[in-house]
């Protein structure tokens, strides 16, 4: 147990340097200042802003949230004023924020993504771009981009062509083979991958017989999905070389360490901010303590260090109970 100088918690995603490995999940941290009175934004790696689309979106009917065992379901429906209004009225307010801001781009066609990405990335207030490909593609009867390797490759290539800023591609866990999708995104030029977005789910009110979400289905987040997300990070890390922002149910430093050991270079915190806005600061402090206690000096020394011993044989025995 060698004590070392205060560990270095900075991480590098593409050409983006962050002081801390903690990114606030898109859609969970608004425009980056809603939590300013309750959390020390100086102690945050970056805020991934709420996803923006080409056209304004009113968003989904209500209710949009429901609390379930060890997590929540949400179906916000990407409510946002559209890129024009966003650039004119919202982005200017981002100047001089105490922490790095990463823009999140969503769309319903390849062209949408390229258009919004290019205009957003052009702004100095935006340090990098996260591409949320978990949206349904209206062209191919609503199949989501993130569920199809070809569509994923197309979207990422289109977005890549519009900017040199760091491009983070956010993957969906709702696929048979997430590693395959990850390879496509890497090949198409992604600088980093966010793993994972919410898991699709549904809840029904047994008295009214109505779905508990206005949108019928929603995305599951919180501790309930942590083991699913840890495995997704583990599998993606074995398939690609670019850094991974691991997320899904991270509430404590121990949770964060699980993702780093599984292969993540940084971590995302979303739902845990709704439990306690002090979580991000606690995790940063906890990571620092842990590194010191273990005589380590950088986060990178943890990334992917889970020691799995025998594997393929084990994988054959499989998860079949």
């Amino acid at each position, binding site marked *: 147990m060698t004590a070392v100088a205060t560990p270095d918690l900075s991480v590098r995603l593409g050409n983006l340097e962050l002081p801390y490995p903690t990114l606030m999940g898109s*859609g*969970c*941290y*608004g425009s980056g200042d*809603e*939590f300013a*009175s*309750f959390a020390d934004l100086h102690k945050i790696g970056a805020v991934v802003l*709420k996803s923006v689309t080409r*056209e*304004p979106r*009113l*968003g989904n009917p*209500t*209710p*949009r*949230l*429901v*609390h379930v065992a*060890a997590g*929540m379901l*949400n179906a*916000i429906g990407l*409510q946002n*004023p*559209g890129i*024009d*209004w966003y650039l004119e*009225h*919202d982005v200017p307010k981002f100047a001089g924020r105490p922490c790095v801001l990463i823009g999140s781009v969503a769309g319903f066609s390849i062209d949408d993504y390229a258009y919004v990405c290019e205009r957003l990335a052009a702004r100095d207030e935006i340090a990098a771009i996260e591409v949320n490909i978990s949206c349904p593609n209206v062209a191919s009867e609503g199949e989501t981009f993130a569920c199809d390797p070809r569509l994923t490759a197309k979207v990422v290539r289109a977005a890549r062509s519009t900017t040199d800023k760091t491009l983070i591609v956010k993957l969906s866990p709702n696929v048979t083979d997430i590693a395959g999708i990850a390879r496509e995104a890497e090949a198409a030029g992604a600088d980093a991958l966010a793993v994972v977005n919410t898991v699709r789910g549904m809840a029904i009110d047994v008295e009214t017989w109505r779905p508990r979400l206005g949108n019928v289905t929603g995305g599951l987040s919180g*501790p309930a999905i942590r083991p699913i997300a840890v495995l997704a990070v583990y599998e993606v890390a074995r398939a690609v070389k670019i850094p991974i922002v691991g997320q899904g149910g991270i*509430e*404590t430093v121990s949770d964060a360490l699980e993702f780093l050991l599984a292969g993540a270079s940084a971590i995302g915190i979303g*739902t845990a*901010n*709704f*439990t*306690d*806005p*002090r979580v991000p600061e606690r995790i940063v402090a906890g990571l620092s303590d842990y590194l010191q206690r273990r005589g380590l000096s950088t986060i990178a020394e943890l990334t992917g260090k889970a020691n799995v011993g025998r594997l393929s044989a084990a994988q054959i025995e499989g998860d079949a109970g």
Partner: protein
Amino acid sequence: MTEMQPALDHNARVHVTSVIDRRVVAPSVISLGFRAPELARAARGGQYVMAVPPSGEAAAVALGIYEAHDDRISLLFFLTGKRTRELGALRPGDELSMFGPLGNGFELSKPPKRATIVAGGVGIASVLLAAEELLRAGSRVELLYGARSSAYLVDSTRFARLGCHVAVSTDDGSAGHHGFVTQLLEQREPPELLLACGPSPMLRAVAASAARMGVRAQLSLEETFACGVGGCWGCVVPLSAESAQAPSFPPSDRGGSDVVYARICKEGPVFWSDELRW
């Protein structure tokens, strides 16, 4: 058009408080008192806090600030589910973190001669501070208070002691008017100021009565919250795009809609009855 009382965001912060008293005020209704000087000073009628469940295993719970005197505030809540049960298990001496005060409280800048407050069920928890403020300003305040049955009428005598004129109703007729509290409202003269907090069927009825009476009611709404601070757009209600509380949105292009979804936690929780499009 008057704005709701602005949330004094510079006052809002995380408060680490400790329980100083606990009362079971009705069947499965708990009142907890906390030592929280700054919060007590900052709280305004209609505002709420987000209480952090001690286990750290569930989302923070939005609770109205019931009392706020000197260095003490109190919360009043129903044991509805996992989180309120966890809070209900707290005992004097236990620590609890909460953040706030949050939300835009009732608009009380022009105290009227006659004000009417309609409270249903646990809605009572969000109107005491407003009643006190109006009484201090010299208004005549009438409280119309409805509950399931007499056992669930919490602290109604206390409002009377303060100087409110209290009329109650119960669904089962066990006390006061047998029926809905909004029926009591119907029997009244149109008030200059009308505040309401309670279950949404009640609020819709109040909105309808107000329309008939030709007055605007201030309604304190409820919805499932996640962040409680405007960060997730999960707690919305359809609002006229013309409302001063409507979130910024391209006026020209709303897909033809003159309605936008406003965040109950940020733009609300108090809205004008005639601007809601629910």
